[in-house]
């Protein structure tokens, strides 16, 4: 019975893995990965890792896959191309060589435990109770480091994916319009040539704006200089 379940789950996992690589549309690749993860969770259950299997389904096939689906939906399918040139042939060859090498390593190692069915099963092996106990006693430091790592990753993702101001072109032009500009820009004084606008530096107007508004006009304000003639 366990052999049948193993072969079903193993074939499912390998098929899902092939689907991730082979399918052209990234959305279907994500779905194939979800299938692969569920099959792998079945393998974990056969290995008596109940808590890991549950975490696999909930965290991976649940949360992470939803994240993937959202990003694929946001970015779009895009062009589903494989690499050009030599890597297209060399990549699968490299993978095949790696597989052969791993098989040779596994067969040549001659480990006795690999050819056994594993240690005697004790009830409670891999249960949440024992995993939690290990996490809070023996592996407390890795547990805390993992939580800090998650926090750093969350902050990093927000910083990377946030909307940057100034990147949008229309906002940039808007900022230029409202920025500091030379005095007398766009006034009648500039048009009449009374005042030369110096580009590149923001000259302080020698007449206060209020005075210009309520004064006798641009000409008098220009000739008045710094005497504040057109004041209150």
């Amino acid at each position: 019975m366990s052999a049948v379940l193993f072969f079903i789950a193993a074939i499912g996992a390998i098929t899902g893995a092939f689907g991730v690589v082979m399918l052209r549309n990234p959305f279907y690749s994500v779905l194939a990965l979800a299938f692969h993860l569920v099959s792998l969770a079945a393998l974990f259950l056969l290995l008596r890792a109940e808590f890991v299997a549950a975490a696999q389904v909930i965290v991976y096939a649940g949360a992470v896959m939803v994240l993937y689906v959202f990003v694929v939906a946001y970015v779009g399918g895009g062009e589903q191309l494989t690499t050009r040139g030599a890597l297209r042939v060399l990549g699968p060859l490299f993978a095949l060589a790696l597989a052969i090498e791993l098989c040779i390593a596994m067969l040549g190692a001659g480990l006795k435990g690999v050819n056994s069915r594993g240690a005697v099963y004790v009830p409670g092996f891999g249960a949440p109770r024992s995993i939690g106990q290990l996490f809070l006693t023996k592996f407390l430091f890795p547990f805390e480091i993992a939580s800090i790592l998650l926090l750093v990753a969350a902050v990093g993702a927000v910083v990377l994916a946030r909307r940057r101001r100034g990147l949008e072109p229309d906002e940039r032009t808007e900022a230029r319009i409202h920025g500091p500009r030379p005095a007398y820009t766009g006034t009648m004084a500039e048009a009449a040539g009374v005042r030369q606008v110096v580009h590149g530096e923001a000259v302080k107007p020698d007449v206060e704006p209020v005075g210009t508004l309520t004064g006798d006009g641009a000409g008098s304000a220009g000739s008045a200089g710094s005497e504040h003639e057109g004041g209150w």
Partner: protein
Amino acid sequence: MNIGWYLAVSAIIFCIGAGGVLVRRNPLVILLCLELMLNAANLALVAFARMWGNEDGQVFALIVMVVAACEVTVGLGLVVAIYRRQLPIDVDELNELQG
């Protein structure tokens, strides 16, 4: 089933993932292939934990899951940032490491 069978499945999945990283060009699919490789390592860890009757390997597998989740978060953030800058989502085009 013998533990060796699980290790064989793990090796096959790892090699599929490694080949996918080399062949595909879309960063999203490359991230998915990285997930495949991490999951293959997880399967090997859990298989060895079963072999020894020791749960330390399972704890390590859970830590690997946490690291994989972090990697996915940052990687997807990068993909979204690339998309926002209207650059091509293609690792062959994005070969200049400059802002």
